[in-house]
């Protein structure tokens, strides 16, 4: 996708400004590092942003850390503990975590003017900074509002070695001795996952999964992860189903860095056995067209997460103008204003009631969807995200509250 193609979505001015900003970073090399190439929001964003940064002339290289299954089990625990889930992480597990970071430190090329690290998995690579003398930024995509404090203190030692940090919400950012910037994630309106689809394509995807349009479709697209509460979704659906006929789609993929998903998927399958109106779909990554089609075919989109860094599936549904019911947690509350561009709920019962409310009032549901689309256009697109990253990189070289360029 070429950067100029975004003019049709956001206009000429913002794209021209991206080119000017990128020009100011000419000659700089950005090295961006995370823990997975595919699956999950971070990889998805990088898959879109990295090529566009390169096209803009900011040389950006993307690398992924390696690790054993044990390492990723620990990082999954770390992820959950940062979200505030009750998890015990032993000293041995933290040693394994650091050991793996050390191995990556030796094996990876960490040269570049700016090393941009995503999330906790590769956080300890920062120990290489002193030797290399380059700039380092840590980007947290997780809802760390109520973290496991012992773990936060452990990570903080490493985070404070960076030049700057980035969070998706002010409430995720705890006191740090380095600068904390606020940048929200984004979706790409021109990607396969978000571009317009023909009715034939949507029908063909529904056909592939044997889903009929004979009753309203409620959908949650998410990794099979306890924090996305798929079981809570099933319970909400069961409550609605007593009075309004509908069908449920639970669709998601897996990621290399998420060893827990198979267990959750099997539990979900067990809970839904015997109901032909529940479609549990394990999507092969990437499944962009499938996700796009399922979202577009849905009557209502759910995101019943118990914790959520930002919730890109919410942004995607907003862009598609869908009525959304989502939990009032983490970054979702940044995107959804209750009763205006979606509904925010806090319980299974509340979610069930909201589903019924929207199914019975299609005009209201449509209005919520229309407002959601406008909000997404204004705030959640990749062009705004690239602009923020370019400003972030420039800020490392330009101190002061006002920078004249």
């Amino acid at each position, binding site marked *: 996708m070429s950067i100029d193609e975004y003019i049709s979505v956001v*206009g*000429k*001015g*913002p794209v*021209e*400004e991206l080119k*000017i*900003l990128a020009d*100011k970073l000419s000659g700089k090399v950005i090295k961006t590092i995370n823990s997975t190439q595919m699956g999950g929001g971070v990889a998805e964003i990088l898959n879109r942003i990295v090529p566009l940064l390169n096209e803009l002339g900011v040389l950006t290289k993307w690398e992924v850390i390696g690790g054993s299954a044990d390492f990723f089990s620990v990082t999954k625990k770390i992820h959950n503990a940062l979200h505030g889930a009750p998890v015990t992480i032993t000293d041995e597990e933290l040693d394994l975590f650091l050991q793996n970071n050390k191995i990556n430190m030796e094996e990876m090329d960490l040269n570049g003017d700016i090393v941009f690290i995503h999330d906790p998995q590769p956080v300890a690579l920062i120990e290489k900074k002193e030797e290399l003398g380059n700039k380092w930024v840590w980007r947290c995509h997780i809802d760390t*509002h109520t973290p496991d404090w012992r773990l936060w203190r452990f990570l903080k030692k490493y985070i404070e070695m960076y030049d700057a940090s980035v*969070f998706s919400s*002010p*409430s995720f*950012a705890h*006191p*740090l001795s380095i*600068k*904390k*910037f*606020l*940048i929200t994630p984004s979706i790409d309106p021109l990607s396969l996952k978000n571009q317009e689809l023909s009715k034939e394509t949507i029908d063909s995807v529904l056909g592939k999964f044997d889903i009929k349009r004979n009753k309203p479709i409620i959908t949650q697209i998410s990794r099979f992860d306890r924090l996305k509460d798929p079981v809570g979704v099933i319970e909400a659906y069961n409550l609605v189903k007593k009075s309004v006929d509908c069908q449920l789609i639970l669709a998601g993929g897996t990621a290399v860095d998420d060893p827990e998903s198979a267990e959750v998927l099997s539990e979900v399958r067990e809970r839904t056995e015997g109901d032909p109106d529940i479609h549990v779909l394990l999507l092969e990554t990437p499944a962009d067209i499938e996700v796009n089609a399922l979202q577009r075919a849905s009557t209502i989109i759910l995101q019943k997460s118990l914790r959520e860094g930002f919730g890109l599936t919410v942004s995607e549904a907003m862009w598609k103008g869908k009525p959304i019911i989502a939990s009032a947690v983490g970054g979702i509350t*940044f*995107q959804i*204003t209750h009763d*205006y*561009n979606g509904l925010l709920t806090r319980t299974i019962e509340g979610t069930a009631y909201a589903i019924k409310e929207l199914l019975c009032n299609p005009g209201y549901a449509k209005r919520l969807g229309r*407002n959601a689309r*406008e*909000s997404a256009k*204004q*705030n959640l697109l990749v062009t705004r995200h690239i*602009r*923020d990253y370019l*400003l*972030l990189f*420039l*800020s490392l070289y*330009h101190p*002061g*509250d*006002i*920078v*004249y*360029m």
Partner: protein
Amino acid sequence: MICAKNPFIFQTGLNLLEITGKKARNLKELADLIEDVPLSVIYYHTHHFLPFQQYVSPKSPNDFAYWIKKELHEEVLSEKIIALDLQRPLGIYELKERMLQLIKKYFANDEYRAYDARSGKEFNFIKAKVFIMPTGYKAYDLFELYDALKSVSTDSIYFHLFGTDSHFEKCVNHFSCWLRDELKEEALADCISQLDPFVFYAMETLRSQLIRPIYKRLKAVKT
């Protein structure tokens, strides 16, 4: 038609938001922090469209007023702070002082309930680091100004309507200044200086509101 000696150089002001880490749970803490934070923080919280709110209704750009109403349920005080908007143009320092006066006076009011916001709903003070740069567009006369306004970003339009001096002390409407000083377009300058970006639903509406009087003036000049 007059051609300017000094062209209007379109710049843009792009904000990188920084979390200051300062947060207020109640009105007293809010007042203390408003007193304490740099003007760049006050500028940000009073001069941007509320994120994700602008399609609901035309909102005051004052985050403090919004939070006081939404999280502390102090509607009366919120209304009074919003109404400071009627006294624009106010310098940032002046606006800060008037907000503080209103809040402090409110402590003695019967309506005051001394609520604490719920955990996670505190007022987070954000600072905007502003990057100002030329966009490549410039105009020597009204025609060129009109043409450029159709293409530049809304950030650029916003910057020129709400441009601040280098110390965040006052706001300047660059369009009006240039129209008055360079093109001697007094009436048009007055008309544009009265535009209030926050009464419009969306930034694009603001663009069309800015273009309309220029277009009218161009038509009048032609005839």
